[in-house]
């Protein structure tokens, strides 16, 4: 029956049912769904690798016999998760879907480029999976030379090519977003009337466009060195292996903010909506996003405090790293300030959002440990670092992704997900995550190095704890997959604005028409213009 509804009601989903109408579409909403499918696939591929990693570490000598297999596993986990899930996830799915809707535009500035970027992404994914099938890589996702350029037996070049292509897909997306935000704002949609989600995507795109090409060239230099057995990183001829690390982190540190900034945006939409209160300190949040994008380019050296760089650069990069934490702190306080005096509802998106604030705060604070030089010397390259960036990326970014997915699910699919299941998923994910990764902070302090296939027995207890937590976390991830899929067919039909949220995307029907709006909207209200709760009561 529900399927027939889909056919009857006019929306971007019912605008053509042929495979062609999907694979050759230039509709940003359909491309978002194409992307959603691809990144979900990669998320579970990377997740499988993670599961095997945790499985291996249950016993000190390693459950998986061969160290080589283990090294290939965590390399695959890193490469797939970083370039094929974390970096694209929010921008290419929620971003693609919402940027034009929130701006009151009919599509992105360059729809065909948008489709092309998806095909590039798929191509990159195929090459990456090929390199795995062909035998994999064992160099870690950081590809440090000379291990990668001369010693590794793995399929380095294939993997590098995959990342290279994926990079251009990101550049295309970022470029598209920036131009769209500059050019296609609806009448009355001034810069300071834009939702913070758009601001954070703008900041993200700046990083994508200006950092990714650096990675591209770095990988070219690496491939050249591996193919011709000579290159600028080769210490044997006076090249400098640290140059590779500088270049790699010039991209990869800002890339961390590519992962988390869109999350900030999502949370900045959800917290006001479920506190039915305007965002606290809008301009501060906006400029915090922009300054994060800029400062994130000035801190890469903190990945190299024990790598043999000069003392001076270590000092400079250390203080800059502390600076980048300030705008993040500002955001956290502003979200809490938003909750103050609000009318807080605890639907699943809000639960995910609160989980995000907690986990991200922990991730951010442990970042201070590794920014403080002397502490970093002890903690870097250990499980402390692993725990730290998983708190930011998985605890932070993935929670935000699920928060946003639940928040806009009714808009995207026209269906409501089962609320109770949603809340259960949020809670299980939060608990499972902490069970998995908190023990790793202790492991790190005690000195357990990362990327170890086997370890001294005294580390076993904490490792078993972590692996046990991982199973809970796995349930937390499989649950939404199940009930969200279920809701596609049997979920209740969603109204245009099920959350009483502000923002243009809620002013059009769910799911939206192919052309988004019947007539181009005109913006008059400031952002997050939530009526005082008394009024809000009447809405329900």
């Amino acid at each position, binding site marked *: 029956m529900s399927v027939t509804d889909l056919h009857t009601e006019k929306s971007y989903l019912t605008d053509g049912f042929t495979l062609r109408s999907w694979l050759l579409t230039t509709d940003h909403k359909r491309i978002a769904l194409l992307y959603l499918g691809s990144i979900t696939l990669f998320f579970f591929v990377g997740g499988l690798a993670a599961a095997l990693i945790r499985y291996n570490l249950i016993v000190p000598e390693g459950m998986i016999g061969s160290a080589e297999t283990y090294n290939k596993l965590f390399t695959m986990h890193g490469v797939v998760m970083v370039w094929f899930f974390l970096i694209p996830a929010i921008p290419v799915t929620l971003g693609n879907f919402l940027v*034009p809707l929130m701006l009151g535009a009919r599509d*992105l500035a360059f729809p065909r480029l948008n489709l092309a970027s998806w095909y590039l992404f798929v191509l990159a994914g195929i090459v990456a999976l090929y390199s795995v099938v062909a035998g994999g890589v064992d160099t870690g996702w950081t590809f440090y030379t000379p291990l990668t350029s001369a010693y590794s037996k793995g399929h380095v070049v294939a993997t590098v090519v995959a990342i290279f292509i994926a990079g251009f897909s990101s550049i295309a997306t970022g*470029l598209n977003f920036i131009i769209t935000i500059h*050019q296609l704002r609806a009448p009355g949609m001034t810069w300071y009337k834009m939702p913070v989600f758009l601001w954070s995507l703008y900041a993200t795109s700046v990083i994508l466009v200006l950092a990714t090409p650096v990675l591209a060239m770095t990988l070219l230099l690496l491939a050249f060195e591996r193919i011709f057995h000579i290159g*600028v990183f080769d210490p044997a001829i006076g090249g400098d292996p640290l140059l590779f690390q500088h270049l790699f982190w010039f991209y990869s540190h800002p890339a961390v903010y590519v992962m988390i900034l869109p999350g900030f945006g999502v949370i900045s939409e959800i917290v006001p909506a479920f506190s039915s209160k305007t965002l606290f300190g809008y301009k501060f949040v906006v400029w915090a996003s922009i300054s994060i994008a800029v400062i994130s380019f000035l801190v890469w050296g903190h990945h190299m405090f024990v790598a043999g760089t000069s003392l001076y650069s270590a000092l400079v990069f250390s203080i800059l790293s502390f600076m980048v934490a300030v705008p993040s702190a500002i955001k956290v306080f502003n979200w809490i300030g938003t909750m103050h005096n609000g009318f807080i509802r605890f639907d699943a998106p809000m639960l995910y959002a609160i989980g995000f604030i907690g986990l991200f705060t922990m991730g951010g604070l442990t970042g201070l440990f590794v920014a403080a030089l002397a502490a970093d010397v002890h903690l870097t390259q250990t499980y402390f670092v692993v725990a730290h960036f998983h708190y930011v990326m998985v605890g932070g970014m993935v929670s935000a992704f699920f928060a946003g997915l639940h928040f806009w699910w009714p808009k995207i699919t026209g269906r409501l997900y089962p609320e109770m299941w949603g809340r259960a998923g949020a809670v299980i994910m939060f608990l499972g995550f902490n069970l998995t990764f908190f023990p790793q902070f202790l492991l790190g302090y005690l000195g357990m190095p990362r990327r170890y296939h086997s370890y001294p027995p005294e580390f076993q207890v904490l490792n078993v704890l972590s692996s046990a937590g991982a199973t809970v976390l796995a349930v937390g991830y499989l649950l939404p997959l199940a009930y969200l899929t279920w809701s596609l067919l049997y979920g209740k039909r969603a109204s245009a604005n099920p959350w009483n949220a502000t923002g243009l995307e809620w002013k059009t029907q769910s799911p939206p028409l192919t052309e988004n709006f019947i007539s181009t909207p005109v913006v008059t209200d400031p952002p997050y213009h939530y009526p005082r709760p008394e009024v809000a009561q009447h809405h329900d």
Partner: protein
Amino acid sequence: MTEASLTHDFQYSNARHQAESAISGMWLFLASEVLFFGPLFLAWIYSRHWNQSGFDEGARQTDLMLGTVNTVILLTSSLAYSAGVAFIEAGNRRRLIQCCVIAWLLGAAFLVVKFGIEWRHDFSKGLFPGPEFAIVGPLRDGAQLFFVFYFLGTALHGLHMFVGLILVGWIIVRAREFSPGYYTPVSVVGLYWSFVDMVWIILYPLIYLVGRGP
């Protein structure tokens, strides 16, 4: 693109709006390109910093004359194309085509000189880094680093030139569609063409000049 009207796609309010977007987009892409070449320049700084004599010795092996001639060729090609843009702006399509053809020929000439002549000499002189590298003695390593930079830099620039030639050719083919009212592709390709020129303007001293001299 079904709703796309003659002059502009449906998401834009008018043709000018779309033109501005396209031009801004190209500029942003070029900014990205600058960062693409950035690491190459940083590699130049590192390699020369650690191995100055050898690196400069490598630079002395390059062919200053061909390099300089090529630079002039490229500058002129860029001028020709920009003139073409000015002409179509003024509605003179015939001149546009002539300018584009000149620009195209000059660009092709650059590639012939660079890869047909200069690279051939370099290879025959055994300057490609590796076991058979010609320069021996204490300066060998630095010189090899220089030629890693040289070959990678010129190859990537050449690749950009090649793409540029295809684009300019495409403009020539489509020339009859353009008018003072609509010539966005001409301007956009022009931006790219001049940018490739710019890259060479920076590469030229890094390859031929800085290392040379007494």
